[in-house]
């Protein structure tokens, strides 16, 4: 019984080139293992396939070869629960905040009796108590994204996927959201796979940082961030880590693009 929540072996994914005549590898023989309960970030420049990796794990895209295995928490072979927070909130604007969360609960076949408690619990957790009856369009961008987070958390997923969830927000809201996410993690601690192009964000939030390059699309570096939580955004240790990672990144990028 592995303690891993995610196991990916030799994952490959090809896309056709714009001309349609040949194919190039978006992901090539990618290996990744994430222990249960870890917050893991995947960092890389735009276009390196991080979102594709996430989509494959989530089941929206198919892979060409290799093995993707998400292990359910109870250790059985049942299908794992996957929560996903997208770059944009992707809320159903015609449903109230609470109904949006109920939608996910219904989709996951979670019993109706548990709905009310979950809605309340996770809305409280993201700081949106009292907003249940509002419609998404009445909320700010940051609040909408919080609803999306609550929605993903409410199904109590085996793995929570987050695809650059704060990249569409203004900087101030994004910073607040990062800190808030950090605090949420004190209450709920699913396995998280967090995709971002920001090293700083990755280093601040995660325990494991995986760095991806473009050509070939592989993970070339893995780093543990051993600083205990809750972390301060201004912690100098984070700056140092980030500096090192940046150096490594540039080295790899230079090599790749030669």
């Amino acid at each position: 019984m592995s303690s891993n929540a995610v196991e990916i072996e030799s994952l490959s994914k090809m896309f056709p080139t714009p001309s349609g005549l040949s194919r190039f590898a978006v992901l090539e023989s990618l290996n990744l293992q994430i222990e249960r309960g870890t917050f893991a970030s995947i960092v890389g420049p735009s276009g390196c396939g991080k979102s594709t990796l996430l989509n494959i794990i989530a089941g929206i895209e198919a892979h060409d070869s290799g093995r993707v295995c998400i292990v359910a928490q109870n250790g059985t072979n049942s299908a794992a629960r996957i929560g996903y927070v997208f770059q944009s909130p992707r809320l159903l604007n015609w449903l109230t905040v609470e109904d949006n969360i109920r939608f996910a609960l219904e989709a996951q076949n979670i019993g109706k009796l548990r709905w009310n408690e979950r809605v309340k619990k996770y809305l409280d957790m993201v700081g949106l108590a009292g907003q249940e009856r509002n419609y998404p369009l009445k909320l700010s961008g940051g609040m909408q994204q919080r609803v999306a987070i609550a929605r993903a958390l409410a199904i109590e997923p085996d793995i929570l996927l987050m695809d650059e969830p704060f990249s569409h927000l203004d900087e101030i809201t994004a910073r607040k959201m990062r800190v808030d996410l950090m605090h949420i993690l004190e209450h709920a601690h699913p396995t998280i796979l967090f995709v971002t192009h920001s090293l700083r964000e990755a280093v601040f939030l995660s325990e494991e940082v995986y760095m991806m390059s473009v050509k070939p699309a592989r993970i070339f570096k893995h780093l543990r961030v051993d600083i205990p939580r809750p972390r301060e955004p201004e912690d100098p240790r984070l700056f140092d880590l980030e500096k090192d990672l940046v150096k490594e990144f540039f080295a790899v990028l230079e090599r790749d693009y030669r």
Partner: protein
Amino acid sequence: MKLSRPALLPGLVSLVGLLLLWQVVSLFFLASFLPSPAELLSRVAAIFSNPPAYLIVGKTLERILAGLVLSMLIGAVIGLVMGLRPAVGSFFDSWIMVLLTFPAISWAFLSVLWFGISDLAPIFTIVLIVFPYVTMNVWEGTKAMDKELTDMAMVFRANQFLLLRKVLIPQLMPYIFSSLRISFALSWKIALVSEAFGAGRGVGKELMYWFQGIRADMMLAWGVSFMVLMVLIDVMVLKRWEKRVFAWRQIAVA
């Protein structure tokens, strides 16, 4: 948008002018040929002070309602299927196109030949003319659906039924609603044509009766009062309903 007083003025002036013109011209003709505004009103009052008039209007409304509801249902379902299964869409595209070409009168005649003088004839006519419009509208709507929301629902493993109910159909509502008001406008006009020679009792029948009796005043009385009723329904029922259904659309003022 409320118009300011100076903006309303030209409209009011022309309205008064037209009424005066009408009054003057009507003096040259018999009331049965061209009634004055006052005479028209008295005809309307005479009609609606008699109970049978309400039954007649009620009958026509019944048919319009039935035809409209059926058209919306059939049209929406077909449009949805055409949108979700592109092959089906391409197949039925030409049928719908052809149906849109039929003039109301053709179905009116055919339905009387098939069903005789009955309720079925006007309802059938309405459905066959109106449902293609609804189908086209809903079909367009399916093409405009947000793939990101469908992906989100897929990730959360929503089954087809839940996807349809909570994600797809709500996105189609604007299209369904816009076709509702157009369909209503079409339906009542078609009902009149169809009733003119294919119904036992109805407003269209009254129009035909008075047309054959060469009574323009009675035709106008029935016609105008029915028009007013239709506009009232459109504004007071349909428009309001539309507003309520789309209350979620109001974006908060920053």
